[in-house]
């Protein structure tokens, strides 16, 4: 079974990029929780290292077994993830009004994170057998829609709007990549354009308010709007070269909310300036283009579609997070992949990259 070529073709580049971003993450988390004196979360950077270790194990597990097996067991993996997500609604613990966490021994995990990978595998499995040259029709979309809506509804119930939307974005990107027939596309677009105003009129005033605030944080000057202003000040005041490591005043004085998770990029930009923040964005561009080139070299539809799904996953999380802290996007709780503190999200990303490496190192199998 073991093939020497697996070592020869191993994708060191992807692993290297992952390692660099993860290191930047740990260093920035250290600053976020330590700069400016004692916080109760001082040792979180150490925990992040543990998560990365766990992620590395998950990653290795994912490139050891041929991804063909993932194709074979796609629906098993998918329903396994769905079952976990469903069990959260039954056994999960409530934190801050929503039920997202499943306690397994001493650690708590968020099955909704793993669901993203499960969904990518399931959709890649499905689409790889149903591609059409002149695009998918409405009928072809029924099954994928069911695959997405099951976990979507379950996660919306927790409620976790951010993660639920992420599923839709990933699925949407994969579907667009597969191509939709022109007539179907027009039909969907029209239906959407018509149904939104209708749905809007059914919403209660407070629900409308919440959506408007989501789209335009400035409407909530004491909450999200204020956070975005402080985040923009943090990023902007970093200037070209930054204020220096552990010297970010916005960070030190706790003007940033969630500074070790959602707003980590603001901390990083304040300390390292345009040079540092630009470099991180560039690293993300590298990793995404690398992922697409893996798909490019791959010679089997499932591998290609899974790679595209994983790239979409990393892309959307990164784009929404960085866009949000720079004031380009609505305020949603989405972590910055590999940089933000977080167990489930870090492990999930590393598992996903493990799958990319898997596809990459087995490209020879079709040569």
């Amino acid at each position, binding site marked *: 079974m073991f093939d020497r070529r697996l070592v020869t073709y191993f994708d060191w580049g992807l692993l290297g990029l992952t390692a660099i971003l993860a290191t930047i993450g740990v260093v920035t988390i250290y600053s976020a929780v330590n700069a400016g004196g004692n916080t109760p979360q001082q040792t979180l950077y150490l925990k992040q290292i543990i998560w990365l270790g766990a992620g590395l194990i998950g990653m290795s597990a994912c490139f050891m077994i041929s991804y063909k097996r993932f194709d074979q067991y796609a629906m098993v993996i998918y329903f396994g993830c769905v079952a976990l997500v469903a069990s959260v609604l039954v056994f999960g613990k409530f934190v801050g009004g929503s039920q997202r966490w499943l306690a397994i021994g001493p650690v708590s995990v968020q099955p909704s994170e793993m669901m993203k990978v499960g969904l990518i595998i399931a959709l890649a499995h499905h689409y790889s*057998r*149903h*591609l*059409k*040259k002149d695009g998918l029709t409405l009928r072809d979309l029924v099954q994928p829609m069911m695959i997405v809506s099951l976990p979507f509804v379950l996660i919306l119930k927790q409620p976790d709007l951010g993660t639920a939307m992420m599923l839709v974005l990933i699925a949407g990107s994969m579907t667009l*990549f597969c*191509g939709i027939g022109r007539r179907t596309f027009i039909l969907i677009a029209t239906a959407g354009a018509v149904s939104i105003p209708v749905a809007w009129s059914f919403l209660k005033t407070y629900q409308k308010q919440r959506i408007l605030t989501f789209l335009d944080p*400035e409407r909530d*000057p*004491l909450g999200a*709007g*204020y956070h975005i*202003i*402080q985040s*923009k*000040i*943090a*990023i*902007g*005041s*970093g*200037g*070209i070269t930054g204020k220096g490591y552990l010297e970010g*005043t*916005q960070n030190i*004085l*706790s*003007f940033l909310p969630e500074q070790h998770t959602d707003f980590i990029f603001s901390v990083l*930009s*304040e300390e390292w*300036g*345009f040079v540092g*923040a*630009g470099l991180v*964005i560039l690293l*993300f*561009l590298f990793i*995404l*283009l690398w992922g*697409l080139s893996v*798909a*490019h070299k791959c*010679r*089997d*539809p499932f591998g*290609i579609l899974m790679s*595209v799904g994983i*790239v979409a996953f990393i*892309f959307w999380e990164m*784009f929404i997070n*960085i*866009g949000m802290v*720079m004031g*380009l996007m609505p305020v949603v709780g989405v972590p910055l992949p590999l940089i933000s503190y977080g167990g489930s999200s870090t492990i999930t990303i590393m598992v996903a990259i493990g799958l990319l490496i898997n596809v990459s190192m087995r490209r020879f199998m079709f040569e």
Partner: protein
Amino acid sequence: MKNYLNNMDMDWFKRRLTIVMALTFAIFCLLVIRLFYLQVINGEKYRQLSANNCIRLQTIDAPRGLIFDRHGELLVDNRPSFNISIIPKDAKPIDATLGRLAAYAQIPKSELEEKLKKKKPFPVYKPVLLKADIGRDMLAAIEVNWFDLPGVVVGVNPIRHYINAQTAAHLIGYMGEINSKELKSGAFPKKEQGDFIGKFGVERSFEDILSGREGGRQVEVNSSGRIVQVLKTVAAEPGQNIYLTIDKRLQQKAESLLAEKAGAIVAMDPNNGQVLALASSPSFDQNAFVGGLSRKKWQALISDPRHPMTYKAIQGEYPPGSIYKIVTAMAGLEEHVIDRNTVFFCPGHYRLGNRVFRCWKKSGHGKVNLEKAITQSCDVYFYQVGQKLGVDRLAWYAKACGLGALTGIHLAHENAGLIPTAAWKKRKTGVKWQGGETLSMAIGQGYNLVTPLQMAVLISAIANGGYRYRPVILYKSVTAKGEVVKHFEKQVVGKLPVSKANLALIRRGLWDVVNGNRGTARIARLKDIEISGKTGTAQVFSRKAQESMKEKDMAYHLKSHAWFVAYAPSNKPEIAVAVLVEHGAHGSRSAAPLARDIIQMYLGKKEPSDTGQMVSLRQ
């Protein structure tokens, strides 16, 4: 299936992948441009904003809802309070600033330092309160010298003003600083350390209605903490105004009747459960609580032997005395132990085994039927009814009349009282129930405990034909814009366990108590209003021991409590009253005239014409 891509068409994939790469690259350019815009083009602007942490949030307190009586008479409003705070970050060097502030405001510097120390660790850019509710002189001194006091801010907050000091103090209640237990409970999600919440009475019960929603301001400040411009404002949402069911004039009348005494008066509309007056004496001054009460004042209040901090109308638990005979009569009639013609002979005492139980009238009442027994409050008659019923049947009727349980009035700290049963005594003391205890219970002495409010609900039910209404104090709540949010609804919580005919018999007896020639409450008669009622005297000490002393020599705390419950007009009741005077000795002498005066005031003059905006609420 039809025309799916079956063979590998790698060029198709590669074309699409190239497009995706291009798209990705384009979006990254967008992100980098945005980053460049923030950090390079506007870098200097943001650097300045961050240097002073210029953009800050200030909270705007929501004005608390006002409290009115049923006729729209204002009971509680808000007044501005000026507070001095310091923002440590702007006040540098903080020691020198504190020194100058102490000099201008003439406060010892040590006091200010103490305050600051206590609040540690404080966020350096948020105001730390130094002194609340300062006077005009101090305010002027600080305003004149503000340029010399960087980081010192004077805030204006609305605080409570209780217009009629001492009036309905227990009912309205007071506010206090939220404590850590309340913060942790999760019941006050929007409150933080240092905020005030209602702690007692209406202020507590209707906290969520009254408190409104805090607003805030995004402001830009300069390096000494002065506001340069207000960027955005979210207006505070004022709390709702509430209208209580009480009538301020009646409440004040009740309080003046209780002046110099300890006790409670409850007046209710028997037809719907609206509480018209809920007075407790002695009272206290709520305004003293506004800025936080000193430990010494608090100690003085709670160690007062007449318990001004106890809301006697709903918390005070007393033996019901002869008022309980209403329940005993009801039970006797319904259980067919007696009927209207049953006659017992009262020689002034009753023998059970080798014990002798006295009637309050030593010479005895002679032949007594039910009506006479109620009218003259004959103990011997009810001893015999009680003995025939037994403790547990009697207790069942008492509980069905709502005794021994909370009335459900929307006020915290209400007490339930106690209705004993044989099983209760065995459990509590381990001793078996004694036959003699049933006799004491039948005339309302012994273990029985009731609150004045329970008595008012009971007499209201007698008055209205048997319906126990939940006593209500909120008439309506209205937003600052005038929309009515909550409105009073009457709610029946139970029915008296008595037939129409038997209730009529009891009512006949109660009419005689006031209007009969030998009634115990003839003192309560009014010229043009017919009143029905029942007196009660609740012993705090055994009757035998009492007799050996002259009443006037008796120590205050050994004297009996005086009760009177009444309703009027007798045939079509519009008001029900329960009066309790602690250690008032006799129900007829101490309590009945008070009830009479309340009734006279309420029924004698109809609704005051000067308020005009509210029509009569009485049916």
